[in-house]
């Protein structure tokens, strides 16, 4: 199929039909119908896998970008949303939706078909949707809770589920405003009043099993070479006897407080000697309920929360969110705003890659020396961001249609000094000392291999995808901001291993510098200093009813925001398509067969941040 060429036909239900959507409608007829705002509603669930296969094989939407659900409590349905992207061509995503009736109480919904057989990258995303909404995906290989624990009562993102500190559905809460009397939250809502212990629950006799059956499938599969549990005293082994030596496979838990898991990730690794034979991830140790809090917050409230997703690149996360809201509201920005966004955003990309490379070396055993040098450089960048925005990491810089502060002339000079003098030298130095380093190459070449087609199928994005030879970068594939005004390349390497991921990051830092340099020069010529707000300033934004999927290319990959508005001052649905989380999907395939020490390196090369993984 060709890209979008014809003018989209307006359908009766409201969604504009693209040629691809028309092709689906033409082929499947009454099984699909245009959805209200965007995409197609699959009315006949039994045809869903067939339609998805058509989408993947005929229409070439080869990556599942986003899977989530929305709870429409008034209509009594839960809507499952799937979004597909063509990689590496890009363009707007294709949306397929399914609706299931809302079950009563804490029951699970009726089953919907899982996309895992077609798109292996669906596994974690479907598990999250199951965890948050209780939507059952038939065919998902490991449908357990992922962010919460097994046995948790209720499905937290359903609209009628209330958390312990529940005060109202949406902010601003009457209890805090406008009376103005400050009260501690504990006094307003004592915690025990709203914790969901089911009736008859006995805390003494309850047998907790938070991991579910995480070990069962690992124990069941491949019981080693004749595992009996017998011990033998072995003397004078020859080669033949060595081959017959009985060895046990053991299961090791790494994390959640392991220093090399980049936070509170937990890996359950099955080992045969030093070789990894199976791996499972236990997530959610930093699940901070961004999405539930985000639905209670007003639109503006959410900007500082996005900083805390991927806390190394706060500004870029904000960009994705304000981009989505601006698209829904039809807000215009100014030239100055766009240039400032590019400059600060790309500076955080540099900071993030410094951090990633430093800690990759840390994981490789170069304990802390490279990281110390790169933290020093990162400190220079965040010094500038702090001077401009007021905070080192949680900048809270973007606004709808604008940014919060202008650079002073001294800060501008500092930015120029960093972009033209200091950072290029640092990157050259980094390249000089590390890239040809023998140990780095020996450890990382061929480690964590993931070919291009598998990478796409696993919904991998960011440097890891580009290291496998797929030239997909949202800045070019689904452009936003002023990136079309800059001359820069998308670095691609072809071996799909840890070393190439490192090389991609180094090259991306050079490209980022090129962008920053051009942006600084262009901003001086083409924009007015102080013109940092398009439209008029507002605290209380009313976003027109609708939905939007906005994505940006953060240093870790494609960060997307799926937003649904019902016309009120709060998001009705606020979902974060987190690249770190989805990239972790492929960790098992990269790791199995490698040594356990390489597990840590492969994880380091994925460059995850747990704040974004668990949200």
């Amino acid at each position, binding site marked *: 199929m060709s890209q979008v060429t014809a003018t989209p036909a307006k359908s009766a239900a409201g969604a504009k039909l693209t040629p691809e959507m028309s092709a689906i409608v033409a082929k499947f007829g009454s099984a699909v119908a245009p959805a209200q705002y965007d995409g197609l509603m699959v009315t006949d669930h039994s045809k869903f896998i067939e339609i998805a296969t058509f989408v993947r094989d005929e229409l070439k939407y080869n990556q599942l970008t986003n899977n989530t659900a929305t709870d429409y409590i008034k209509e009594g349905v839960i809507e499952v949303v799937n979004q597909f992207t063509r990689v590496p061509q890009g363009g707007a995503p294709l949306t397929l939706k399914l609706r299931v009736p809302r079950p009563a109480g804490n029951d699970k919904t009726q089953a919907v078909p899982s996309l895992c057989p077609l798109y292996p990258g669906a596994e974690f995303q479907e598990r999250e949707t199951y965890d948050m909404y209780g939507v059952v995906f038939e065919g998902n290989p490991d449908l357990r809770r992922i962010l919460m624990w097994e046995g948790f009562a209720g499905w937290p993102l359903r609209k009628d589920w209330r958390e312990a500190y529940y005060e109202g559905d949406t902010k601003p809460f009457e209890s805090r405003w406008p009376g103005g009397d400050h009260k501690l939250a504990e006094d307003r809502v004592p915690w025990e009043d709203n914790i969901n212990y089911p009736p008859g629950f006995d805390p003494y006799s*309850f047998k907790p099993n*938070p991991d579910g059956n995480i070990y069962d499938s690992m124990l069941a599969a491949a019981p080693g070479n004749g595992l009996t549990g017998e011990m033998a005293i072995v003397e004078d082994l020859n080669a033949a006897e060595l081959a017959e030596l009985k060895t046990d496979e053991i299961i090791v838990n790494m994390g959640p407080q392991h220093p090399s898991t980049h936070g509170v990730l937990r890996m359950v690794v099955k080992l045969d000697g030093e070789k990894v034979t199976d791996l499972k991830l236990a997530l959610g140790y930093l699940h901070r309920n961004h999405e539930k809090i985000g639905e209670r917050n007003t639109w503006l409230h959410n900007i500082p929360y996005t900083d805390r997703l991927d806390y190394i690149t706060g500004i870029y996360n904000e960009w994705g969110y304000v981009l989505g809201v601006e698209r829904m509201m039809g807000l215009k920005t100014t030239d100055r705003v766009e240039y400032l966004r590019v400059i600060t955003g790309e500076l955080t990309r540099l900071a993030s890659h410094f951090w990633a490379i430093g800690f990759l070396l840390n994981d490789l055993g170069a304990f802390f020396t490279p990281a110390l040098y790169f933290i020093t450089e990162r400190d220079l960048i965040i010094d500038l961001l702090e001077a401009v925005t007021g905070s080192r990491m949680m900048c809270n810089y973007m606004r709808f249609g604008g940014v919060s502060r202008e650079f002073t002339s001294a800060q501008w000079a500092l930015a120029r000094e960093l972009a033209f003098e200091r950072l290029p030298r640092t990157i050259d130095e980094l390249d000089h000392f590390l890239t040809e380093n023998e140990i780095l190459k020996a450890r990382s070449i061929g480690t964590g291999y993931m070919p291009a087609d598998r990478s796409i199928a696993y919904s991998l994005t960011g440097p890891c995808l580009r290291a496998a030879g797929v030239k997909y970068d949202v800045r070019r594939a689904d452009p936003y901001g002023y990136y079309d005004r800059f001359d820069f390349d998308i670095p691609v390497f072809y071996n799909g291993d840890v070393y190439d991921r490192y090389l991609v990051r180094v090259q991306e830092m050079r490209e980022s510098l090129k962008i920053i340099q051009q942006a600084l020069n262009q901003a001086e010529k083409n924009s007015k200093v102080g013109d940092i707000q398009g439209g008029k300033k507002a605290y209380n934004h009313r976003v027109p009813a609708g939905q939007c999927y906005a994505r940006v290319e953060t240093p870790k990959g494609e960060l997307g925001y799926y937003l649904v508005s019902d016309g009120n001052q709060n998001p009705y649905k606020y979902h974060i398509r987190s690249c770190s989380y989805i990239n972790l999907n492929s960790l098992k395939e990269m790791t199995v067969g490698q040594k356990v020490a390489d597990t840590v390196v492969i994880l380091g090369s994925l460059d995850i941040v747990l704040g974004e993984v668990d949200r």
Partner: protein
Amino acid sequence: MATETTNITDFKNDPRVPEDLNNNVFITTLDKLYNWGRKRSMWPMLFGLACCAIEMICTAASRHDLSRFGWELMRASPRQADLMIVSGTVTKKMIPQIVRLYNQMPEPRYVVAMGSCATSGGPFKEGYNVVSGIDKFIPVDVYIPGCPPRPEALLHSFVRLQEKIEKQSIRSVRWYTTGKTDEGMLVPYLGPDLVDLRRADEIKQKTAA
């Protein structure tokens, strides 16, 4: 000899001190010597929870240089650590592990609650998976406000903790008195929600009704 405040020069012309030992003998209390050694060789536990951990790493890095205070040796094992820096949001899913880690640390042990989240739940307090402050489960010595606190704030907390350690006396601290062993804190578990066993009776009453 055992005076509380000791000035070296007092002994310079003291006939009880032989001449060749002048300026070579320092007299102090055992408490001071003991605390002086302790406060300058704290080993924090190497574990980070969330955003604050990044600032903790920056504190340990070259610019802020934690080793000036003798605290740079971060241990990955709780059994070798004296200090737990709770650097980030404490979730219900994580709290059993944190309490267990705390119990595994040998006494004397100290806890610094770094940032708003560890102190009170911070911006995520309303979350269904967030514990409103680590002090609901383990005792905290120093709280640092901030989201995240700057490295200087973390350093300041170390200085405050050193002041606290200085005031402790070897005669009265619990870990040297017999018969008063610390069993650690009760580890909560993950049931339908987080179950705090200290309140088990209360919960049982409520759910039975």
